[in-house]
Every structure is written in structure tokens, then in C-alpha cells.
């Protein structure tokens, strides 16, 4: 572990975690509307530890109806990977920015070129949910060379031996998918969220964040009894689709921040 190179995302998240803070990483769809970069600033002020920005893709197979709709809206406004990245490079909010997208958009530009472009835009990490460990070798080395943390995902179906390898390979944080399913709000917290978080925590000192299906402060608190933090996606994006804007987004993430901070 001593020779493990970590990038800016992991350094920052480890530091926050190590001082006893639970981590919140909200997700928004890049290019959703005219004020999406203002939402990023508001989320940082509201207590986000990093912010995940989705670059919309035509075929988002890991996403449920809410993020699908956000992707369609963004694409219909003419949003492209270039336009999102250009705006991100002008958006400095004091917390690391993480891009989440699908591998085709990265492969299309070329792994080497995209890694460099993202680094130049001050993006600290990248999540590609359709690029599992076995296919990720080339991307991970290009990302590492550019100084970007390539986040890997584990799922409830991941066997132990594989989970250990993914935890070892992941940079930035380990993204633990909390349930079997695509992104979307759930009324009940899946028990699998706690199980997967514990399995990862037993394996690695890299921060472990649970995402997919985390929808409200109570669920975030429950998960953080085991995990280092949460990724909040659909619950936030739905508020943006409903027109609640930067203020509504910040209010929601602020509630989760307060709930976590009151416990830890």
C-alpha cells in the first residue's frame, strides 16, 4: 500500500474522512439547464465533499428514469462532452469535481486524450459504470498518468475475491452500489447497502461510498453507520427536474449534511 499513488480526489476524501467527517458526494447531470454550474457552487457551500457531474450519454444503461430524463433534457439542449468539460474548467468551487459518464464517450475521444482534457479542466476523478475492472486496464493507466483518480464500482453480486481486487484497484473512493438495480429513488433502504459497505470496509482503507438508491437523510445516516459516505443522485436530480434550482438542491444536501454532522 505504501507505493500506492493517489490523486487529488482520494487525498481530499481521505483527509475529510480521517478527521471524522462523513462524506457526501451529490450527483447532477451536466448541461441540464442554464444554471447547472451555479448548482455546483451551491452544493459545495451546502457541505458536499466532492461533486459528481454526469456527462449525458444517449444510452445510459446504469440509469433509471430520473437520470435518463435529465440526460435527454441535457442532450436536447445541445450538451456535449466538450461543452460540459469547458464549463467545468471555469467552475472552481473548492471541492473536487468528479465526472461520471459511459465508456463510449471516453473511448470515442481516446483514453489518452480524454484523461488529459479532464485533467486540464481540473477534474479530479472519473466514474465509468460500464467499464468493469477486467476491461479497465488501459483507462486506469491513462487516468493515473494524467493524475486522475479512476473510481471502480463493486456490486452486491461481486464475489469476495473479486471485491478485494476492485477495492485494491479503485482510486479516489470505492463506489459501492447499494442494491441490485439502476439509479433511482427507493423508499426503503436496501439491506444490501449495509452489507456491501461492510464488505468493502473490511477490505480497504480507501474511502467507501455507497450510491444508488440513497434518497434521504435517514437513509444516509443508516448507511454511514458502516460506510464513509454516500453518493446522492436521483433524489437530487428529481428536485432539479422539478425546477427547485440551486436553492432547492442546496437545501436538500444541507439537510443530509446536518443529519450526518449531528451524529458524527
Amino acid at each position, binding site marked *: 500500500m505504501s507505493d500506492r499513488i493517489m490523486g487529488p480526489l482520494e487525498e481530499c476524501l481521505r483527509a475529510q474522512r480521517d478527521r471524522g467527517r462523513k462524506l457526501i458526494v451529490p450527483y447532477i447531470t451536466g448541461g441540464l439547464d442554464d444554471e447547472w454550474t451555479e448548482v455546483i457552487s451551491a452544493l459545495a457551500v451546502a457541505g458536499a465533499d466532492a461533486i459528481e457531474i454526469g456527462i449525458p*450519454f*444517449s*444510452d*445510459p*444503461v*446504469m440509469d*433509471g428514469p430520473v437520470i*435518463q430524463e435529465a440526460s*435527454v433534457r441535457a*442532450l436536447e439542449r445541445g450538451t*456535449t*462532452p*466538450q461543452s460540459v468539460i469547458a464549463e467545468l474548467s471555469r467552475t472552481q468551487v473548492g471541492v473536487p469535481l468528479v465526472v461520471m459518464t459511459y*465508456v*463510449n*464517450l471516453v*473511448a*470515442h*475521444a481516446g483514453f489518452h486524450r480524454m484523461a488529459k482534457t479532464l485533467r486540464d479542466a481540473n477534474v479530479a476523478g472519473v466514474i465509468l*459504470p*460500464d*467499464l*468493469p*475492472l*477486467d*476491461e479497465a486496464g488501459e483507462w486506469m493507466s491513462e487516468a493515473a498518468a494524467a493524475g486522475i483518480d479512476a473510481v471502480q*464500482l*463493486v*456490486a*452486491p*453480486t*461481486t*464475489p469476495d475475491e*473479486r471485491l478485494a481486487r*476492485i477495492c485494491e484497484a479503485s482510486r479516489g473512493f470505492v463506489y459501492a*452500489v447499494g442494491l*441490485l*438495480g*439502476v439509479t433511482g429513488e427507493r423508499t426503503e433502504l436496501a439491506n444490501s447497502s449495509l452489507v456491501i459497505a461492510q464488505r468493502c470496509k473490511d477490505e480497504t482503507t480507501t474511502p467507501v461510498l455507497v450510491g444508488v438508491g440513497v434518497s434521504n437523510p435517514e437513509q444516509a445516516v443508516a448507511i454511514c453507520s458502516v460506510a464513509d459516505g454516500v453518493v446522492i443522485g436521483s433524489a437530487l436530480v428529481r428536485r432539479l427536474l422539478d425546477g427547485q434550482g440551486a436553492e432547492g438542491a442546496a437545501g436538500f444536501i444541507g439537510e443530509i449534511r446536518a443529519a450526518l454532522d449531528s451524529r458524527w
Partner: protein
Amino acid sequence: MGEPSAAGRFGDFGGRFVPESLVPACQELEDAFRAAWVDPAFRAELDDLLHYYAGRPTPVTICRQLSKELGITLMLKREDLTHTGSHKINNVLGQALLAKRMGKRRFIAETGAGQHGVASATAAALLGLDCVVYMGEVDVHRQELNVFRMKLLGAEVISVTSGARTLKDAINDALRDWVASVETTYYCIGSVVGPHPYPFMVRQFQRVVGDEAREQCRELLGGSVPDFVVACVGGGSNAAGTFAGFADTDARLVGVEPEGGAANGRGIAGVVHGMRSNFLQDEAGQIEEAHSISAGLDYPGVGPEHAYLSAIGRATYESVGDAEVLDAFRRLSSTEGILPALEPAHALAWIFRACDSGEIPSGSTVLMTLSGRGDKDVAEIMEILG
């Protein structure tokens, strides 16, 4: 056509680009398929179903009139004569038996033209599986009759309203279902697409088409192989199955894509639906919609083995337009008394064009896979022709 690499690659193409939740399931499927494929009991049961239930072997018919008109020997491999009316049944019977063997009772599928959906619903009814079929809303309207057939067979048909609402989007929603249901559900992909092992497995289940045709051509041609072997390409399963029987011969292999969905012709390499292959995409890498008169070929990608065969030059890929396809449909119907599905009418349209241009020299022997019958398309064609 051999095995893919251990990572499921045909050259640079293929692989397993799926969300982590599905990686173990793809591995489990690969193991189960490999074990079944070498298990004589499994093969015997499959052969039995293909023979007594699906009606195999299907004949090869020499076109009497068209051969004369074109100055060639035109032979049709008659997948239209199978139970449910297309080659899709070959693959589905194999996968449904595999699902049973793996203990998965829920059987999901995507469909474009509805032929794979109908075949899936049929096999599920026969083997006692619960069937759910995802179908783009546009195709639900284009292929009303097949939707009704699936329902009669006891399947649930889910109309997909995301994206372009055709086959690509039906695959997306089937994948999303599978991500959530993988522990109890078998995903029966209808073509040589998707993550490893699907492209390989579906080709193996379809190679019965090519293996039979090789034997039948040998008989009809006094021991030789055809000069040309032609098939239409949506995802590419009937073509892959056909080519598999002739790849080790001198036959020229030709896949025919629709002009508006020519992934091998106009597409570029990308990663979608679990595989690295050729796809129609815009300058940013967003996947474009395919457009063709036939729902079964409305797919912006192509199976990875076809991308590979194209790259190494073993097969060539041509494209034809809707108008030529309609002409071919009418010409086969009126000269030979065979109503083809619009998909294989693409292959025939290219043969007509190539005979005209001399690309197929007169005196050639040409085998074409007639992948399905035209009944499903008659209503649509009636509307178009007025």
C-alpha cells in the same frame, strides 16, 4: 469462425463492458454454456427440439424463375419455414434450455421486429418459463400482430418509451431489468450482440443454419460450395450462423445492412450494449438512431464478430435502400411464390443489384439465407404500397 479469446474478443472487438452487477452473471452464463455445449444430453435435447418442434432441417430451395432471369443459380436457405417463422427460434430454444438448466425461471428478451420476442414467448410457453419482452414503442405499433401473438403465448410485452423507442432502447431496458433481477432472471439476447459470451453463444446456436446449408449445397452443387453466401445483418445472427458453415471455404461471404443502419459500412468503433464493435455515432460519440423499413434491422450497431470479419476482410458488408428492398420483396413473391420478411429482402436486393452490375458474374452459384417469412410485414407493406 473460431473461439473468441479468453476475454471474449474477436480481434479488437467484443469483450464484456457491463455494469459490475452483471459481470458475475456473464461469467456464470459462459461457464454454463460451455458445459452444456459439450454435454451430449443437452445437445440431444436441443437437437430433438430443433427437429420435432421447430421443423429442422429447413430445406434449401433453388429459385426456378429467378435463377433463369438472373443467369445464376440462386439458392435460398429456408428459415422462413421454421416454427414461428424465422431463424430466431434456433437461438431461443438453445437459450431457453440453458435457462432451465441454470435454474432461472424468469426469461426476458428484447425484440425489434417481434420475431425474437415471439420465439422467446414460444420457447417460454413450451418450457414453463415466465417471459417478459421489451419492445420499443415504435415497433409495438409497426408490428402489432407480433405483439398480439406474444400475448397469446402468455408473455408480458413492455412498451419501451425511452430514446428512439426501437430495438436499441429495448436492449437498454432489458439490460436495466437484468441489472436488478440478475439473481433470478435469464436474459435471452436475440442476436450476436451484447457482452461475452452472447455473441459467441448465439452464433453457436445459429450455426445449425450454415452447417445444414453446407451439406445441402454440397448435394445440390455436386460436391462444391457456392461462390457467394449472402445474408442480411441487423445484429448479425442469421448471417453469423450462415457464415459459420462456410468461413473455411472459398465462398465469398456478404452481409447486407440497411442504408440507414449500416454499422459496418458507416459506423466506427465504440462500446455500447456490453461490446466493443462498430456503431453509428455522432461526432461526440452519442449513438445515433438507425432507420430502415424493417424493424429487425433498425439497429445502429453490429455484432463484434462481424466487425472483426469486416476488419480482416473475410466478409464484406454492403448496404441497400428501402426502395430496392420493396422491389426485391415483390419480385420474390411474384416469381417464386415466397413472401420474404423485409429483413432478408435486403440480402436479395443486393443480389439483384450485384447481378446487374456484374459483381456477381453470370453462372455463379449463390446461397442466400431467407431468415424469415413476410407475414409479419404484410400489413406495413400494404400501407406503403397503398
